[in-house]
């Protein structure tokens, strides 16, 4: 992970140096300092937006959910005790916001088209990859929503299947099945 060897002490010092400014910003934001919270926003918005965009495959929705994430984080700052890194906590808030949105969207679809067979809506979208070039982001965007969510959470965000299962309200085995499906569909897109 680190390009040059570093003793444990030097490494800890480096971690402290990296995290200390954020710790100070978090404490100030917890006290109501919007300037400090803006600095945290600037430091993390790219990652949060990437999660939202990849999980929803919808730029407008991703913008809204990014904003919702930071508003939710601001409202919940009091519950952040600093046991984990602020970044991990914030990304978890983001994932919960996005999953909540996706669940609501599925519920709306279920109300509009009453059917138990929701899987039929869970199909890959039409091929967004005309021609010979392949854009991995586009191929991910074309995945079925659940498979796409599991792929992003597992492969990009590094969550384990047990964690994903808990967040998404599914069984760990289902999370694995979604990941398998996502990989197979991406593989097909890559070799096409």
């Amino acid at each position: 992970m680190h390009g040059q060897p570093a003793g444990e002490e030097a490494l800890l010092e480096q971690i402290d140096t990296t995290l200390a400014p954020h710790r100070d910003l978090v404490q100030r934001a917890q006290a109501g300092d919007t300037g400090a919270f803006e600095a945290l926003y600037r430091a993390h918005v790219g990652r949060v937006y990437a999660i939202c965009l990849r999980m929803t495959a919808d730029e407008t929705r991703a913008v809204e959910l990014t904003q919702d994430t930071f508003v939710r984080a601001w409202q919940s700052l009091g519950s952040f005790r600093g046991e984990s890194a602020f970044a991990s906590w914030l990304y978890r808030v983001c994932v919960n916001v996005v999953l909540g949105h996706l669940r609501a969207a599925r519920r709306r679809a279920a109300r509009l088209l009453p059917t138990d067979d929701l899987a039929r809506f869970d199909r890959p979208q039409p091929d967004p990859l005309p021609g010979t070039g392949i854009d991995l982001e586009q191929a991910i965007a074309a995945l079925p929503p659940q498979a796409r969510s599991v792929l992003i959470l597992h492969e990009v965000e590094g969550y384990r299947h047990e964690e994903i299962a808990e967040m998404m309200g599914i069984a760990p085995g289902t999370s694995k099945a979604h990941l398998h499906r996502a990989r197979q569909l991406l593989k097909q897109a890559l070799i096409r």
Partner: protein
Amino acid sequence: MNDCTDILPLLQDYLDGALPPEQRRAVDAHLEACSACRDERAALAAVTAAVAALPPALDPPRDLWPGIAARLETPLHRDAVAGLRQRRDGAADRASLPRARQRPARRLAAWTAGAALLLAAVGAFWLAPRLLSPAWEVARLEGTPRIGQSAVTGTGQLRQGQWLETDGQSRAALDVGAIGNVEVEPNTRLRLLAARPTEHRLALAEGTIHARIWAPPRLFFVETPSALTIDLGCEYTLTVDSTGGSLLHVTSGFVALEHGDRTAVVPAGRMCLTRPGRGPGTPFDDDASEAFRRALARIDFDDEGADALPALLAEARPEDAATLWQLIYRIDPPQRGRLYDRLVELVEPPEGTTRAGVLRGDLDAVEAWDRHLGLDLDSGWFFQFFKKKKAPPAPGSAP
């Protein structure tokens, strides 16, 4: 376990390092002998590597902070709003208010009586469904305004949490429950935060709105990145720029601006600037000279009171007397005497007040000056709406 059909389902866990050692050894042995399964493993590994190599961060299409900042309720905001509600309910802790801003309880009584009178007059039958509606009616005025992703072609409903956006060619009108209306100018983004009988609240992230509110005070709030705008029975135009700063222009009644412990009450015919992190400046006459406005901004936002005050005083006209008066308790105490002396050159001081009393912040003197300059709110909210720009008292000499 030498069959490909046994091996292929295990490849995912194999790649994830999640197989028990015994199964892993069996998969290794099969892969060594089977080129088809090796190709499958290589393809899946390539997918995993490609996804893992995606950039962890992506730039959003625009700066999202103004929209977020408009929705943040700071502890200071919350305290301010709670304080306002307390005052509205007649339970204000008067001792906690700044001395210069203390008001007699009779104003609250007048508002309360006025509210009851209006509600009785208009009738619950007509009013109740509108007050209780959790959404605002939207009407297209020009172009194609959008609620979220949906274009508004005729009329629509803006529900709590939804965004209304206008582009360079579109305008829209909003019915704020039964308490007023708002016109939304081009290139504006706003979000409905609350549509309750006791609170109508929107966030104006960017752009311009004209609001006309005939409800009792403190039912209609607009959050901007730099201040909370509180209706006190009024008509006004509010513009938020891309930096989060805003300009308020009140055309009738009164509007309060708050940010933290900074408050500005803006009467008809006056404007007020706000800046992110600083809140509202001092209200000024809408005909004030450019030099006067520049000097005022330096005092309000750049902490250059001592340097900018001479220019401000030199530029001041009788119409700017209210600005000098509203600045008197904001500026550093050593400058107050100079401000007061210029003030009484411009307008006759109210009877019974003295220089020493004003500089001490005596409540009687403060209230007398507020009334003298048309800054008092004692006449009841239902008269505020009809209050238009007031001419200053005739010039006079110092007492």
